[in-house]
């Protein structure tokens, strides 16, 4: 009895520091001001539990980071945890047995009931097992407006996209840029998707993106979309910045009227100490269709052949979904929590709008990441990059888009 107690104590002494001093390397591409503030919340929470967070930030967005992440996973020397957009990106890695099964954590913490909308957990689930921890909900369909800019131009802050387009000449006359747009395909694709939902409506969007319906993609609803994008292109003609946050900065400083960008732009406004509703406004779904997609970030945990690391990985997965972390992280990042049972009264106007849409259960769309493969998305992004910065006509762009959707998977 005595001996076994001693043994137990000894084992505990040996085991305890090992478990508590878990060092996990975490890769991500969150390097803008708001993003870095948010990720430090995760690191703080992790280190508060006595662990060590080795930050593997890789700047240059997913395009630079993803090859590094995937090479390292395939090369058999992976990081302990990594950000990846959830959706179809990780399917093949799961099939190859390279990602840790988190099902026990999900069951122990009752993710199935807590995670809202449930589609987020579905995106992490492969053949009935859970492989990722959803961290936040990001929606792309927002129009951000600078109150300063519209005041300078002497017009009211628009309430929807149509008013925005109508107010554009006044902005131009005042020497301001109507629409700020970063010259990168993914940003231009976000603008395209958002204008689609605003102009063509949810049903048409789903028909093309989810069901790959060629007739709709060729039809008049999408023709109207491409014409609207062509018009928006003229409004953004003088926007020569590259990065999305530099475009957001044009809105923050009142040099541009508005920007179509995801809710992560919120973090930049926050860092610049702007107040929603006073200095800037936000219109989900361009103010035309108050819908949001529910993409977002998730963490995956590559398989590492070490029992202690695995335990630490499970611990981190549970931590990411815990209520405290959900609140702290999402307030800093401007994204929405993945669970409905947390108190976000501290959130500002814009986040409240998003929360309301989420709580209503209507107008929730699956994100593009879940519908289209990375390959198809890249092709659409290339097309949009070309469309936004050349004189490609709306009709030609639509024809090329139809071709891409026809071969989509």
């Amino acid at each position, binding site marked *: 009895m005595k001996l076994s107690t001693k043994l137990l104590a000894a084992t505990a002494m040996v085991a305890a520091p090992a478990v508590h001093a878990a060092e996990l390397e975490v890769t991500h591409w969150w*390097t803008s001001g708001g993003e870095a503030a948010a990720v430090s919340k995760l*690191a703080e929470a992790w280190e508060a539990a006595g662990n060590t967070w*080795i930050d593997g*930030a890789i*700047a240059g967005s997913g395009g630079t980071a993803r090859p590094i992440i995937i090479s390292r996973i395939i090369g058999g020397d992976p990081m302990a945890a990594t950000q990846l957009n959830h959706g179809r990106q990780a399917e093949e890695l799961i099939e190859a047995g390279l990602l840790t099964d988190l099902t026990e954590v999900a069951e122990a913490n009752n993710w199935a009931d807590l995670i809202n909308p449930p589609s987020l957990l579905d995106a992490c689930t492969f053949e009935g097992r859970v492989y990722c921890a959803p961290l936040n909900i990001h929606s792309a369909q927002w129009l951000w407006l600078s109150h300063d800019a519209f005041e300078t131009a002497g017009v009211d802050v628009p309430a929807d996209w149509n008013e925005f387009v109508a107010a554009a000449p006044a902005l131009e006359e005042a020497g301001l840029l109507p629409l700020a747009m970063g010259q990168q395909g993914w940003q231009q694709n976000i603008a395209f998707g958002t204008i689609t939902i605003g102009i063509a409506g949810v049903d048409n969007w789903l028909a093309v993106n989810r069901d790959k319906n060629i007739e709709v993609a060729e039809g008049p609803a999408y023709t109207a979309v491409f014409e609207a994008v062509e018009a928006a292109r003229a409004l953004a003609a003088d926007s020569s910045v590259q990065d999305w946050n530099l475009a957001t900065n044009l809105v923050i400083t009142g040099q541009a009227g508005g920007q179509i960008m995801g809710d992560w732009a919120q973090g930049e406004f926050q*860092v610049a100490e702007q107040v929603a509703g006073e200095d800037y406004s936000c219109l989900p779904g361009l103010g035309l269709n108050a819908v949001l997609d529910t993409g977002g970030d998730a963490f995956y945990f590559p398989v590492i052949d070490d029992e202690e690391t695995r335990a630490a990985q499970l611990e981190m997965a549970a931590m990411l979904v815990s209520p405290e972390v959900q609140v702290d992280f999402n307030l800093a990042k401007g994204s929405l929590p993945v669970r409905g049972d947390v108190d976000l009264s501290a959130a500002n106007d814009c986040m409240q709008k998003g929360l309301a849409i989420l709580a209503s259960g209507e107008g929730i769309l699956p994100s593009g990441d879940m519908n289209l493969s990375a390959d198809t998305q890249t092709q659409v992004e290339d097309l949009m990059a070309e469309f936004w910065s050349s004189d490609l006509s709306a009709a030609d762009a639509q024809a090329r888009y139809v071709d891409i959707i026809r071969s989509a998977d």
Partner: protein
Amino acid sequence: MVDVAMSGPRGPKPKKAFSTRNIMLYGTLILVSVYYLLPLYVMIVTSLKGMPEIRLGNVFSPPLEITTAAWTKAWSEACTGINCDGLSRGFWNSVQILIPSVVLSIAVASVNGYALSHWKFKGSELFFTILIIGAFIPYQTMLYPIVILLREIGLMGDLGGLVLVHTVFGMPILTLLFRNYFTSIPEELFKAARVDGARFWGIYFRIMLPMALPIFVVAMILQVTGIWNDFLFGVIYTKPDTYPMTVQLNNIVNSVQGVKEYNVNMAATLLTGLVPLVIYFASGKLFVRGIAAGAVKG
């Protein structure tokens, strides 16, 4: 061949100091020098300005108020993610990657060049041709096979793996240089040594190495610059703790927090380029001599 470079210019002799010819000659050279110096000047000037001054002025105007704040920030304060220690932590990592990679790649390539010039065997020219074609393959397309290769030999994520990759990709051009150089060493010298009973390694260490100093300098300069400037291999085959300086540079330049801080970017850029730049400025003359000895014999 070796001493040719040291024998000075061979063109016609110059005439008076201020002839039309001289004015044209120096005028052209100075004009061209402006084009070459412009970026360096702009980088230095920008790095010494504060952000407000950058926004007001143009890139060429000298700083009104010189500040080294950007340099300090780039070296020790700039943030990536949650790490705010600038480039400093990449510097030693780069040194640790650099030294073994340079030594190993030059050692292997010099032996290759030696074997290819004086100890040809059936097929040696074929392997050499493959190497030269290999010099044209974009590294990126080899990324996947190399990941698999390193995984199979268990060196993925290890410093040794990175050193190996640098050795492999430095091999084509270096082998070409050494082969050309050793070919130009008189055959008689080599034969005399063989008659004296010296073998492969004996001749290499006692005759070839001492004569090959200029080409070793060239190889060293090329490798130091190439490996120091490498981003792709450094980011894929290392981990955050051991990221080289170029990876930190990319992180600093691409992590835009608020507005783009051009002065910090330029200071970071200069700091990263400092090591190869110093080597070039210090050993430019040796480099030209070595090039003359190695590259010219096509």
